[in-house]
């Protein structure tokens, strides 16, 4: 099986797609990003993006039954972090990323904020399905 392409020089994380696994992974990744020199605002936004991405995988790709996630993250010289996230769960509906329109707050929605937040806070996001894998590639900006 060919190795999925990852950013060169990246730090790799094996994550269990469940709420506790997401917490553990975020703790490790945020410590790493701090060491990578991201500013507070950027780290804050990166944590929101990664929390939403990983929670969506746990909830939708794996349907809450758990499964493996591989995340690779590299802070580039230009201050952006490049990240790839791979899972072996269900494909995105229609094979494309959700539109990410923020729900009307006055409808008092209890969900649907995840992808709008990802789209607002990430500098770039791309999705592809590689065989049985989902791959998200994210660019996270510096403050």
């Amino acid at each position, binding site marked *: 099986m060919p190795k999925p392409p990852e950013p060169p020089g990246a730090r790799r994380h094996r994550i269990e797609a469940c*709420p*506790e696994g*997401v*917490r553990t992974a975020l703790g490790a990744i945020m410590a790493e990003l701090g060491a990578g020199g991201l500013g*507070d605002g950027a780290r*804050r*936004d990166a*944590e*929101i993006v990664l*929390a*939403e991405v990983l*929670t969506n995988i*746990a*909830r939708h790709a794996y349907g809450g039954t758990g499964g493996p996630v591989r995340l690779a993250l590299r802070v580039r010289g230009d201050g952006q972090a490049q990240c790839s996230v791979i899972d072996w769960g269900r494909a995105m509906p229609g094979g494309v990323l959700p539109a990410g329109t*923020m*729900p009307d*707050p*006055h409808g*008092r*929605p*209890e*969900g649907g*904020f*995840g992808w*709008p*937040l990802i789209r*607002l*806070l990430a500098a770039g996001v791309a999705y592809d399905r590689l065989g049985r894998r989902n791959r998200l590639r994210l660019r996270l900006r510096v403050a």
Partner: protein
Amino acid sequence: MNITVRQEGAALVARLDAAVAIQFKDRMREIAAGAPDRVILDLSRVEFLDSSGLGAVIAVMKMLGPERRLELAALGPAVERVVRLTRMDTVFTIHAEAP
């Protein structure tokens, strides 16, 4: 005469996320049963809020029903970011500090 009822529930968790969203809603449901018509949620100890946590807060607002208001207080930077980006700051009354 103004009477302030202050009910100190269990201290709010440091992270209000998918891992605790259901637990948070359940605990708030218990507290809400005897709640007055104005409930202020002190978020000063919450360092991180994701969309699941926000959804839980909104669920609590709805649980309190139209006759009782849920207001938010003491939002840290990470919590405020999510509340503003989702424009939920246009729905909740937000206080800079907990009463």
